[in-house]
């Protein structure tokens, strides 16, 4: 790890101001991605600004319409929340299967979506549920927030404060995971929301994406049979030592079927 300065933010405004002042700052949430990245010398920030003690980023609240989760909530906290499990069980289940118990005790919702790893789980939930990302300066839909592989719409110094997940009629997430890293080789979240059926895929492509063809078919007939013949082209999908693009394309169908079974 290269040397860096360290600053513990006292508030969201303080964190943004510190970022502004630094040459090349990095926000530290749970550190489950940033610290390994620093160890590999893939990043060399001049200062690390720790968001870990900000109470503004904590808390879960539930309204009639939505579950609002603070960016600093750990995956373990989301998974263990009775409020989340009652309102959106598919979201609690997703959080319960990120990484491993130790990672879930440190990793946060805000850190996960701000990093936008193409194999991360939360982007699937943000897009499938039609969530709104509240940053320190504005509100964004998932489609506007996630802009590409490890890329988001966040401006330098802008940070995620909370995410508001509209409560769907029903939703489920199915993941084919890498057994070592537990990241999604392919993850599919399907939700029946107020604005219709939404199908979001993570792990398979350079970033989270929706599958309009499946959404249309499921809107007509919410069943496995309705999507069985839909073929996803492998052209733009990821290929690595774990899975070819063609295999990932196939897995999208399989995970979608599993998500439908879990819901229906």
């Amino acid at each position, binding site marked *: 790890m290269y040397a860096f300065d360290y600053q*513990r933010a006292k508030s969201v405004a303080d964190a943004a101001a510190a970022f502004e002042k630094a040459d090349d700052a990095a926000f530290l949430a749970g550190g489950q991605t940033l*610290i390994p990245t620093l160890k590999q010398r893939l990043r060399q920030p001049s200062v690390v600004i720790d968001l870990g003690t900000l109470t503004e980023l904590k808390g879960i609240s539930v309204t009639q319409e939505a579950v609002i989760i603070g960016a600093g909530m750990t995956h*373990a906290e989301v998974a263990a929340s009775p409020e989340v499990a009652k309102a959106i069980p598919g979201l609690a289940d997703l959080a319960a299967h990120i990484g491993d*118990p130790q990672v879930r005790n440190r990793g946060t919702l805000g850190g996960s979506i701000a990093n936008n790893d193409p194999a991360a789980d939360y982007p699937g939930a943000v897009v499938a549920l039609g969530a709104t990302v509240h940053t320190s300066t504005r509100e964004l839909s998932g489609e506007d927030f996630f802009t590409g592989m490890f890329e988001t719409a966040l401006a330098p110094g802008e940070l995620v404060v909370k995410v508001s997940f509209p409560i769907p009629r029903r939703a489920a997430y199915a993941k084919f995971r890498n057994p070592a890293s537990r990241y999604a080789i392919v993850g599919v979240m399907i939700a029946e929301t107020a604005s219709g059926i939404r199908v979001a895929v993570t792990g398979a492509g350079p970033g989270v994406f929706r599958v309009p063809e499946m959404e249309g078919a499921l809107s007509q007939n919410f069943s496995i049979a309705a999507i069985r013949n839909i073929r996803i082209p492998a052209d733009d999908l990821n290929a690595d030592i774990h899975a070819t693009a063609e295999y990932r394309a196939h897995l999208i169908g399989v995970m979608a079927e599993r998500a439908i079974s879990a819901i229906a």
Partner: protein
Amino acid sequence: MIDVALTVNGRAMTVSVEPRTLLVEVLREKLRLTGTHVGCDTSQCGACTVHLDGLSVKACTMLAVQAEGRSVTTIEGVAPDGVLHPMQAAFREHHGLQCGFCTPGMVMSALALVERNKNKPLTEEIIRSELEGNMCRCTGYAGIVASIAAGAKAMGAKVEG
């Protein structure tokens, strides 16, 4: 250098560290608590698992400065008077280790999983899924799972099967 005030195994202390110092480096190199092992140093293997305010974390994937004001328990803190904790005794009794390198992390994860699941009966399935963050390259895990079930029982937990 930054002063970090924390509690380690019940003892309040202040350590002076560089911002990039990992918690596991403070534990092993400054405090000489070498029971916490570094296996992979990439957040995979769990040999470095300690408790942070009672929750299991990987000490190789946390900066020491992030432990400010927090309470850390290492494997040394599990048996402070030199008598094995029931979970440690169960690992010895049920062949829960061969080379022993992963064992401190396994025991810390075992204690955390017993605590986290105290409101329901512990099953083999729960134990196995809770051990996803800990790797053992010797045993094949059967002895570890049996040890944790026995250790949990000895701690008064309800265990099924």
